[in-house]
């Protein structure tokens, strides 16, 4: 894998600082390698051994690949097989959306943000992503601009039988008082068994008194891998809310690290996962309260069937001076079969007094009494199960403020 990186003459290497970021990533990945069962942060989720799989990196856009639609109005940013597809909607004043490589070359601000939040020494896949940094998008929302429609990043994979490996790197900057919604949607078409590996890294800067609602739907092909890390920094009175639904991929990991950097910064990191077969879907969070009066809430709910495995690793860290902070965390999972598995690791590191902190974890099964009651009213057993699953995930989905996006997620929960 490492050899492959060196072989590629990536665009932008002539820009020294950018080249340095890539090289740092490559070195950091070289030191860490692919995590094994002995790597604490990866003890429940075993990533595929990239060395033994012949992954292919592509650089040219398949022009025929059209962007899938979402059932709500938004500013669409399309990627096909991880490559920017320039057909896009007109943007309103005060929003800038650039392909990452253009931002690196033509927007001097990029240097101030890119790579500043991602800790390549701690996250091997983010290090790998950094070494390949090429595709992705830079989004900047100006001071006090409030977007009326969501920005929608869609990656559509049509790799067929090619084992594609692609790295997406997105940088989102909200200036003071800005407000936006950002949707990430990963989907595929064609062969459901196509194998590919999507490695996504996001860096999000939430300025003072600004707010981002971030939604993600991971609906990759079921033999593919999807590993993503989002690192967010929230400044004073800023707010970052996210909801991620994972329902595709063979190995899916959505990792979110939120740094509440200044007073009264707030975050809600919610997630849901629903799976069957042999998949492993992992939700990992790390919320760092670095300032007083910060708030975090995490609600993660999963439904696991077949021989699948759900993983939740949730961390709340409260720094010594971060008094009057509040951190809440709850993970609940529904196991549909005897062979389904849940691994849950809540972690609280509290170094300050005078804080409110709680965490909880629970797992259960579908209630036979409820199923029978529904059946005795003529509702088929499978339909009844689906209704109970929808009901189980209802509270976390209901946290979504945007009604149209909420219905989109509800439809995706119902569709197998």
């Amino acid at each position, binding site marked *: 894998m490492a050899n492959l990186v060196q072989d590629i003459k990536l665009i932008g290497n002539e820009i020294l600082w950018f080249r340095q970021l890539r090289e740092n990533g490559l070195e950091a990945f070289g030191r860490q390698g692919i995590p094994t069962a002995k790597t604490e942060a990866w003890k429940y989720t075993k990533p595929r051994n990239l060395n033994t799989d012949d992954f292919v990196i592509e650089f040219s856009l398949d022009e025929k690949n059209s962007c899938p639609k979402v059932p709500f109005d938004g500013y669409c940013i399309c990627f096909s097989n991880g490559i920017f597809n320039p057909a896009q909607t007109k943007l309103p004043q005060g929003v800038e959306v650039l392909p990452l490589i253009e931002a690196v070359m033509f927007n001097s601000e990029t240097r101030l943000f890119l790579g500043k939040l991602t800790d390549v020494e701690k996250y091997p896949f983010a290090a790998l992503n950094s070494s390949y940094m090429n595709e992705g998008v830079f989004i900047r929302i100006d001071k006090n601009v409030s977007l009326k429609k969501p920005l929608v990043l869609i990656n559509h994979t049509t790799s067929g039988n090619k084992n594609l490996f692609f790295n997406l790197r997105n940088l989102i900057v909200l200036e003071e008082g800005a407000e936006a919604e950002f949707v990430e949607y990963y989907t595929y078409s064609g062969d459901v068994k196509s194998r590919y590996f999507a490695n996504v890294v996001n860096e999000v800067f939430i300025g003072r008194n600004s707010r981002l609602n971030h939604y993600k739907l991971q609906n990759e092909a079921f033999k593919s891998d999807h590993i993503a890390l989002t690192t967010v920094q929230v400044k004073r009175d800023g707010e970052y809310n996210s909801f991620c639904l994972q329902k595709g991929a063979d190995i899916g990991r959505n990792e979110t690290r939120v740094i509440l950097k200044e007073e009264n910064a707030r975050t809600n990191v919610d997630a849901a996962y629903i799976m069957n077969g042999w998949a492993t879907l992992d939700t990992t969070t790390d919320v760092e309260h670095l300032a007083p009066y910060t708030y975090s809430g995490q609600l993660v709910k999963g439904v696991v069937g077949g021989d699948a495995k759900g993983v939740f690793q949730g961390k709340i860290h409260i720094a010594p001076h971060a008094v009057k902070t509040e951190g809440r965390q709850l993970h609940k999972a529904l196991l549909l079969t005897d062979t389904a598995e849940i691994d849950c690791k809540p972690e609280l590191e509290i170094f300050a007094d005078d804080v409110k902190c709680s965490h909880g974890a629970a797992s259960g099964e579908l209630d036979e009494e409820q199923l029978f009651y529904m*059946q*005795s009213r*003529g509702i088929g*057993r499978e339909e009844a199960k689906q209704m109970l699953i929808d009901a189980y995930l209802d509270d976390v989905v209901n946290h979504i403020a945007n009604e149209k996006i909420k219905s989109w997620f509800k439809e995706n929960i119902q569709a197998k």
Partner: protein
Amino acid sequence: MKIPLLEIEDLYARVGDKEIIKGFNLTINEGEVHAVMGPNGAGKSTLSYVLTGKPGYEIISGSVKFKGKDLLAMSPEERAREGVFLIMQYPVEIPGVPTSTFLKHSVNAVRKHHHLPELDTMEFIKLLREEGKKLGIDNEMLKRPVNVGFSGGEKKRMETFQMSILKPDFAILDEADSGLDIDALKVVADGVNALRNEKRSMLVITHYQRLLNYIVPDFVHVFADGHIVKSGDKNLALELEEKGYAEFVREK
């Protein structure tokens, strides 16, 4: 001519290792209301669950025919779609599922089985309004999750309401009066009586005679030790009220 709707023949059933229904025989013809009365622990509720196919209730031998078809071979939902309805003693709460959504799935599942088109939202709302008025089921109750936070009376009213919109051919009322005060009991009984006709049959399972003052049965059976030990008309219920079940329990 009398047309049999439900025919139970020499039925034996158990829960776990415990045999509870032992040689039960009963034929219910179209339009008839039968009451099964018995002491606590006689297996009355087991009978209702055996007839509706609840998991964990195992048939040892015997047969049950419904409209001439083998009822025991059907899944619980098939039985419901064929027209068997159970008013449960303890209706189940389903958090997260709004009552109206639940009812819509139920009504349309039954309609689909009978090759009727599914009701659209307008038709469905109209149905709920018409039937809801009679039983005091308002829009607010329909928005709430199924049975969650309902009082005992509300739950039984909701059961009766479901019966009135599904219009089953055969209804089992399992201790329909338990937990009800006299006013709530009258509302439920009125709802049930409104559904009585020459085709629809009912099996009223009760410990007390009280309910039978409001839902007057054509036949009364005494159920003890897993089977019927005595049958008669509605006067048998009054007799039991006076003398209690001691005589029948002693018999074994």
